[in-house]
């Protein structure tokens, strides 16, 4: 040892492992415009496809005349449902157990539905062709309001389902009914309500919105007729599942399908499912023998490929007079549009909505969800949340505020009174989940202390008095939100997609010089996997993160995994990475023992190598072990240093957080200002605090957008009126509030590194914080529940309805 010998801290820092604010390695290319996205893929002879779409929300397709289109220079083919029927692909299965038209088959069921696919030598010619396809429609009455979908005289939307009294999830009650899903003990819950001292009931709607990633959905399909192989470059959050689905529906051998997801410009759930564009591009490539590119434009993205939410949640809480909750009853009317194209695990038609008991110790609860069809775009996907978790969090967090108002209690105090206590974990919820770990009281109190919650309430009381005296036209709201998420789908005992268990995977291969490559079944869309996955490996095996290259998205090279959505990457693939790394570490220990001439039990791992216990100078670095793995392994041992792990998680993980939004609203214009937003997140072990902060910023920004105006809106006759960023609220940096972030750390007891996942927490917790702030601002004027989105004019209308504006 001398002055130049690195200290333990220096050695540890050099790894840039877990806990390090390591700079994102992928940003070197992203910030220089050197990313490689699907639209950057240009193959020799590549053709372009584009859709003829329906102007009608509901109509019979009488005739499609493509004769003029085929005369347009450059137009090679016009594909219709009739073409697709010859290869049995006019319809495709959805991830939710329904089927969906690829191209209009006799009818259109939503505005902008895909009707025909024009294939041409360039995008201009394809668009020229679209304008020459003449489609004759016979308009039918549109069904827009989900509350009218099960009326006796409601129009029949899905003629393919006529006479089918059973769907993928049980009996159907009506021709526009998809499923009913019930969870919990109805009898016990009804009894709790019968003897309740206090009850509240409110219909809480979570409006239709859209993930709207900056990069829209797109693909390039290239069929090699000689080899019989299909290569698909696509914006896929789950490339391996896409390969399997394509194999199953196109009847191509799976080994002859190559799915490559290059860099992705945001997914947020939009890029989990399969869309007609993928099928049409693949068929067009098979038909023409040339690569075919399909790139969606913004209007198509917003109006046709996936939406999120459209959940209408009638919520009741039973409680004692002093504010102890005794029962929860929720009925959801779920508007899925024309086809049930949710991206949920197979057995969960309403996703994990049964996390709706939230962070509270409800002795009993009952939930029923009815899914219905309407003449709107199909979905709904999980927009930056685990399946239906943001809906559930919004439902319970809004309802708890309504209860607090009824009891005249502070909403934070009501929550503290009803939280699941630390000693109750693992906690079995009334609706069937086993919460892994949590310390809600500590997180909530930290939020209240850091923000000066009591002082803010005092200021609010003064402002309310001033408002009543006519001295100000501004009202102040405090939005408290305490969410528990359920992420990391999921254990094979309850999660699969089309029969494939929702494990994830990692393969690590170390090279002789102490470097390596790691491949996973996940796919980053901006989450920073190339950075954080290497950090887990660095800490686990003592190789600097900079020496580990991370690769995802190519189904030929990456191990099979279920992809990235629902904050599942860290809980599932993150665990697989740790487990694969530990396999490597075990072998490395045997090699080190052999080289150091001791028994392997005499070794201990020390940051970046193995040390003989009690003999600190006898040490072998991982770098040296890597070299030894390729030239002097113990007799009988295979050379090399690599490992694969497929991780089937024993349970979900349950991140949580305490958020506070402080908002001021000018009642005369409805203009709001988010004065302050504080977000405390507990995602268990923190891998990269800087990336967590970035994820929280992004998720809060999306939550802000959704709560305050981001809406996919249809008029009463089924026209979608929010087809561009002029109409669909996409906040810029100017509108986005400043975010304060904080954390507590409650590791997951069942996860190898204790991490829980964070990417979606801020959206799940953020939306109720904003909405509660608006509702809290108006509550002293008599408001109980004001529906989202809370844009300026709706705030003004709320003030007007409450008599605060003339």
């Amino acid at each position, binding site marked *: 040892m001398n002055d130049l010998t690195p200290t333990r801290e220096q050695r540890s820092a050099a790894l840039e492992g877990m806990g390090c604010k390591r700079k994102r390695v992928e940003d070197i290319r992203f910030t220089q415009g050197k990313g490689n996205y699907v639209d950057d893929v240009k193959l020799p002879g590549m053709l372009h496809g584009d859709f003829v779409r329906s102007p009608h929300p509901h109509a019979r397709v009488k005739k499609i005349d493509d004769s003029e289109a085929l005369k347009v220079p450059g137009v090679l083919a016009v594909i219709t449902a009739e073409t697709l029927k010859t290869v049995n692909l006019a319809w495709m299965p959805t991830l939710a157990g329904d089927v969906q038209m690829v191209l209009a088959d006799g009818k259109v069921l939503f505005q902008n539905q895909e009707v025909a696919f024009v294939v041409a030598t360039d995008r201009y010619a394809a668009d020229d062709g679209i304008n020459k396809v003449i489609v004759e429609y016979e308009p039918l009455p549109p069904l827009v309001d989900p509350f009218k979908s099960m009326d006796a005289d409601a129009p029949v939307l899905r003629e393919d389902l006529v006479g089918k009294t059973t769907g993928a999830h049980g009996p159907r009650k009506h021709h526009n009914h998809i499923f009913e899903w019930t969870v919990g003990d109805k009898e016990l819950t009804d009894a709790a309500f019968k003897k309740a001292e206090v009850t509240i009931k409110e219909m809480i709607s979570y409006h239709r919105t859209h993930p709207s990633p900056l990069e829209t959905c797109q693909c390039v399909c290239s069929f090699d007729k000689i080899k019989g192989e299909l290569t698909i470059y696509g914006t896929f959050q789950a490339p391996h599942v896409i390969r399997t689905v394509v194999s199953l529906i196109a009847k191509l051998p799976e080994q002859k399908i190559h799915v490559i997801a290059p860099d992705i410009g945001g997914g947020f759930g939009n890029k989990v499912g399969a869309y007609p564009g993928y099928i049409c591009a693949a068929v067009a490539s098979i038909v023409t023998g040339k690569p075919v590119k399909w790139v969606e434009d913004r209007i198509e993205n917003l109006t046709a490929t996936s939406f999120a939410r459209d959940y209408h949640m009638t919520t009741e809480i039973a409680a004692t007079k002093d504010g102890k909750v005794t029962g929860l009853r929720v009925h959801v009317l779920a508007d899925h549009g024309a086809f049930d194209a949710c991206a949920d695990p197979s057995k969960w038609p309403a996703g994990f909505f049964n996390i709706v008991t939230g962070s509270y110790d409800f002795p009993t609860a009952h939930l029923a969800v009815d899914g219905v069809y309407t003449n709107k775009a199909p979905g709904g996907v999980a927009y930056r949340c685990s399946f239906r978790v943001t809906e559930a969090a919004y439902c319970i967090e809004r309802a708890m505020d309504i209860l607090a108002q009824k009891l005249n209690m502070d909403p934070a105090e009501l929550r503290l009174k009803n939280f699941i206590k630390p000693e109750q974990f693992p906690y079995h919820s009334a609706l069937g989940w086993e919460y892994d770990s949590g310390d809600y009281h500590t997180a909530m109190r930290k939020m209240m202390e850091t923000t000066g919650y009591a002082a803010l309430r005092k200021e609010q009381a003064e402002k309310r008095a001033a408002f009543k005296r006519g001295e100000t036209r501004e009202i102040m709201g405090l939005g408290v939100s305490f969410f528990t998420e359920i992420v990391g789908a999921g254990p094979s005992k309850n999660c699969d997609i089309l029969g494939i268990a929702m494990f994830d995977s990692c393969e690590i291969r170390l090279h002789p010089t102490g470097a390596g490559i790691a491949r996973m079944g996940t796919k980053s869309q901006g989450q920073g996997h190339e950075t954080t996955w290497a950090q887990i490996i660095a800490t686990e095996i003592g190789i600097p993160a900079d020496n580990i290259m991370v690769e995802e998205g190519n189904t030929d090279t990456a191990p099979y995994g279920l992809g990235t959505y629902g904050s599942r990457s860290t809980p599932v693939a993150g665990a697989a990475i740790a487990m694969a790394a530990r396999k490597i570490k075990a072998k490395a220990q045997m090699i080190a023992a052999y080289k150091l001439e001791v028994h392997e039990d005499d070794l201990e791992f020390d940051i970046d190598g193995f040390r003989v216990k009690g003999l600190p100078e006898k040490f072998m670095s991982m770098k040296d072990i890597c070299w030894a793995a390729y030239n002097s392994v113990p007799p009988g041992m295979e050379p090399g240093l690599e490992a694969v792990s497929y991780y089937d998680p024993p349970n979900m993980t349950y991140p949580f957080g305490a958020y506070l939004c402080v908002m001021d609203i000018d009642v005369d214009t409805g203009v709001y200002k988010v004065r302050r937003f504080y977000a405390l997140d507990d995602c268990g072990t923190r891998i990269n605090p800087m990336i967590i902060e970035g994820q929280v910023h992004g998720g809060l920004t999306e939550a802000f957008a959704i709560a305050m105006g981001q809406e996919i*809106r249809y008029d009463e006759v089924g026209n979608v009126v929010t087809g561009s960023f002029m109409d669909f609220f996409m906040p810029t940096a100017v509108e986005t509030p400043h975010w304060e972030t904080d954390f507590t750390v409650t590791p997951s007891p069942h996860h190898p590194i204790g991490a829980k996942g964070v990417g979606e927490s801020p959206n799940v917790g953020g939306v109720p914080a904003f909405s509660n702030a608006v509702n809290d601002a108006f509550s002293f004027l008599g408001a109980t529940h004001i529906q989202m989105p809370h844009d300026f004019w709706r705030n003004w209308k709320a003030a007007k309805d409450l008599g605060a504006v003339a």
Partner: protein
Amino acid sequence: MIPGSFSYHRPASVADAVKLLSDLGDDARPLAGGHSLVPMMKLRLATPAHLVDLHGIAALKGIRRDGNNLVIGAMTTQHELLASDDIAQSVPILHEAVLLIADPQVRYRGTIGGNVANGDPGNDMPALMMTLGATYRLEGAGGARDVAAADFYQGAYFTALEPGEILTSVSVPVPAVGHGYAYEKLKRKVGDYATAAAAVVLTLSGGKVATCSIGLTNVHETPLLATDAAKAVIGTSLDAATLKKAAAAAEAIMAPAADARGPVEYRKHVGGIMVTRALQRAAAKAK
């Protein structure tokens, strides 16, 4: 979002541009910043066979003094307006309003001529030009003529421009020294059109309003001059009752469409508030 095919022309002089437009007739459209026309073409709602790009005409650029007027070439960008010290000092409301047009990327490309000539009631410049008493120079095959901004707008996207004519410059009378001004714009976000906006230019004399002009953006199919509202404040010190009267007079001429920015009632209501706030801020600035 892919335009149809078109021929592209880039004349070097106003005369050439005018000749091209009159030769090509209805199938031709002049192209300035393109912020309105190009998206319409991408949606194929506009399908001109010929685009006559005005960027090659040096004479359409620049800001110069002509007596008490500032004459601004039609192809002067909004960014150039912001960079002009002359505008900032002598017509500060123009500087203030231009800053509220979208974002820097838009302003680098967007031109004053395109903004005022397109007849889009959502644009900010038309009502402001009416408030300032500006005139537009229109040049066509038959020569040049000047039309007051107040007489230019006939309906949504309908203006006094005759086929083949180009708006070549905007002449803005410099407001009196010591005038007060304000452009109040309510919008949902950067890049959005106004839910409602009001421009006010006034002078005070002995604490009372001596002259006043009020313009309204995006509350009618054309930009509006709220003359009754302006009359209502003359000779007053803008007391609460007067402000209320002015807002009511302004609201009386508004006829906005219901859209995602809000229902008609809301847009008129906030239109009145914009007038009130603009009057108060303008008066506070007047010397």
